[in-house]
């Protein structure tokens, strides 16, 4: 009994001790920055210098992307700002920009010429109806990389230029026993977009009609090809354990052709992370070779009470210096043209030529459509299901078109 009561006493004491731990309201301005782990400013000293110089304390809150959306949505539904500055991933346009959670930045941009906004690429990704909701911080586009050594061991000295060629190469690699599962693609929507865009299918027209469902379209061919890869076990069944991105499997050493992104080669050749090091190289997407991009940006929450301070932070975050630091720390490709060139001249960007070439062939997907989020979710589920149950690719496409149209009707204004 004494134990219980003394124990309760301790618990109460703990709680009392914890109370003062609640951050005292600082005299200076404090802004909060909500970001996934890779958006955290990499150089602590420089951030401290920024804080000292401007008198703004930056409270970095890092959570996983999903959780970030949950937080933003709950807060927004309650009419509050989840944070002052919010990191915007490529899912953000549909999930938090189009839903009105972000502040338009046009006026701020105009008032800040030193921002040098023209130096920043892909601003249109975060622009909706003429309003800029986020400043692009880094660029990513879907690319492919491959293990050049294994390809050479199978007798091929250059990466494939058509999809059929890729398939044949994969079959050869498998038959020669070099790699049992040469293709590292996931059972997800992105794999389909990759093949379809690469084959040249436009996917959607300007009115957002799903032209991918047209009779005999390339997208249909792409779907058939993707499902075929799984059927013929050119892709590891481990990809099917969950509808997952293929990177973990690839880096564990399985696969020759990998569905990747701009910057993935740096990871692929990092011996601490990838078993393929140092043989990974970019390849241009086969055939027409179109791809889509998924940049990230940074914006201000619509309900923020510290807009000025938030804007100062954003300026710092997208400054050339910080962008260079970010590239060096996490390999994310800077959005500033000037920084890209500087890094290239210093030879810091691996595979720059291929990247530059690939970035000429971008055909965007309508990420900003209000219903893109639910559609993408539905697409992955349907594709995953079809792969696991041996479904018919044409039927999948019809299904997706139907869902798209029904969502469009529901949300289209």
């Amino acid at each position, binding site marked *: *009994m004494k134990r219980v009561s003394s124990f309760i006493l301790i618990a*109460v004491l703990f709680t009392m001790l914890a109370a003062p731990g*609640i951050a005292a309201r600082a005299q200076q301005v404090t802004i909060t920055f909500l970001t996934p782990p890779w958006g955290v400013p990499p150089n602590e000293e420089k951030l401290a210098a920024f804080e000292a110089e401007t008198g703004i304390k930056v409270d970095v809150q890092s959570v*996983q992307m999903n959780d970030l959306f949950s937080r933003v949505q709950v807060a927004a539904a*309650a009419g509050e700002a989840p944070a002052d500055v919010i990191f915007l991933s490529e899912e953000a346009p549909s999930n938090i920009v189009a839903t009105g959670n972000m502040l338009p930045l046009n006026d701020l941009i105009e008032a800040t010429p030193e921002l040098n906004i023209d130096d920043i690429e892909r601003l249109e990704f975060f622009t909706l109806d003429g309003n800029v909701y986020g400043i692009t911080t880094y660029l990513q586009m879907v690319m492919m990389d491959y293990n050049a050594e294994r390809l050479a061991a199978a007798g091929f000295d250059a990466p494939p230029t058509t999809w059929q060629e890729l398939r044949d190469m994969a079959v050869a690699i498998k038959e020669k026993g070099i790699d049992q599962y040469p293709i590292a693609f996931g059972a997800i929507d992105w794999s389909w977009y990759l093949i379809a865009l690469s084959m040249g299918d436009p996917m959607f027209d300007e009115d957002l009609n799903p032209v991918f469902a047209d009779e005999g379209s390339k997208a249909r061919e792409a779907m058939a090809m993707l499902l075929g890869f799984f059927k013929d076990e050119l892709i590891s069944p481990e990809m099917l354990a969950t509808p997952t991105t293929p990177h973990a499997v690839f880096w564990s050493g399985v696969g020759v052709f990998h569905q990747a992104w701009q910057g993935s080669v740096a990871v692929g050749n990092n011996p601490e992370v990838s078993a393929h090091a140092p043989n990974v190289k970019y390849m241009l997407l086969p055939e027409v070779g179109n791809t889509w991009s998924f940049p990230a940006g940074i914006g201000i929450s619509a309900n923020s009470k510290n807009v000025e301070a938030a804007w100062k932070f954003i300026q710092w975050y997208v400054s050339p210096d910080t962008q260079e630091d970010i590239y060096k720390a*996490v390999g994310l490709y800077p959005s500033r043209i000037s920084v890209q060139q500087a890094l290239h001249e210093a030879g810091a960007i691996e595979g720059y030529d291929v990247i530059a070439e690939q970035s000429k062939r971008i055909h965007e997907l309508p990420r900003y459509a209000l219903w893109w989020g639910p559609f993408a979710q539905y697409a992955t589920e349907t594709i995953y299901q079809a792969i696991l149950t041996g479904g018919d690719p044409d039927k999948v496409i019809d299904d997706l078109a139907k869902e798209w149209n029904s969502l469009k009707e529901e949300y289209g204004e």
Partner: protein
Amino acid sequence: MTRLRSRPRMIRLMFIYLAVAVTLFWALAPIYWVMVSSISTRAELYTAPKKVWFPASPTLQNYQDLFTTGPKYRAGGFLPTADLMSRGMRNSIVASTATAALVTLLATGAGYVFARLRFRGNQIAFFYLMLMMPLPIWVSLVELYFMFSRLELMDTLVGLILILTTLALPISTWLMTTYIRDIPIEIEDAALVDGCSRWRLLVSIIMPLARPGMVAVFLVALLMAWNNFLIPLIFTRTSASQPMTVVLSLFIGQYEVAWEAMSAAAVVTMVPPFLMALFFQRYLVRGLTLGAVK
């Protein structure tokens, strides 16, 4: 039972230990794997078909990295310093322990009332408590968020404790009601006849007898609070009140999971509740029985 015949006793022990071995294997095999992973290098993890069941050169590097800045954990990613881990641990310990203590206290009192005292509204109060227990919490989050922010409870340990306590109360009260019912009424009658006040009765007589129940409720509430992820995710923001469950989710990278790092973090996370459970389980023993009355 003091006559010890060695053979039946030995056989009994043998069977018991056999059962214990099976049980421990079932419970601990995956945990063993977590521990081994935490002292292995990545290369050792990726071996097949013969797995490395114990690394040839076990390393504490993962643990070391955990408490220093470890950017290698994720493909990209910058983990703030050891602060994050230690504060997360502190928050988890404080929040869970305080919740468990508070819940146990309140539930025991209420359990006694519901089990023993008949008064108008007893049933209604009980149902009131139980009715919303299975309500999924997703949608209530919005209103709670609103409330928390108005009450300035956002990102505070106090707020976290309050809500975790509330969520654990229905189950705990029901459990304590059930356990207290098992206590023979005669003991209380004897005390009341002797002029004992209701309060003293509760504290000096019921509580000691209900000790196993209280410990069970304490452990249940502790672990419910310790493992809760959604509530801290929404209601905490910084290391002022963020517990380990949220901190751990940061070990999931953008593209991959640093399994050896995550397992080190998991092992560290399991230590405090393990120690607490170890300490408290000794109270899961039979309290005084009818014999006390005589």
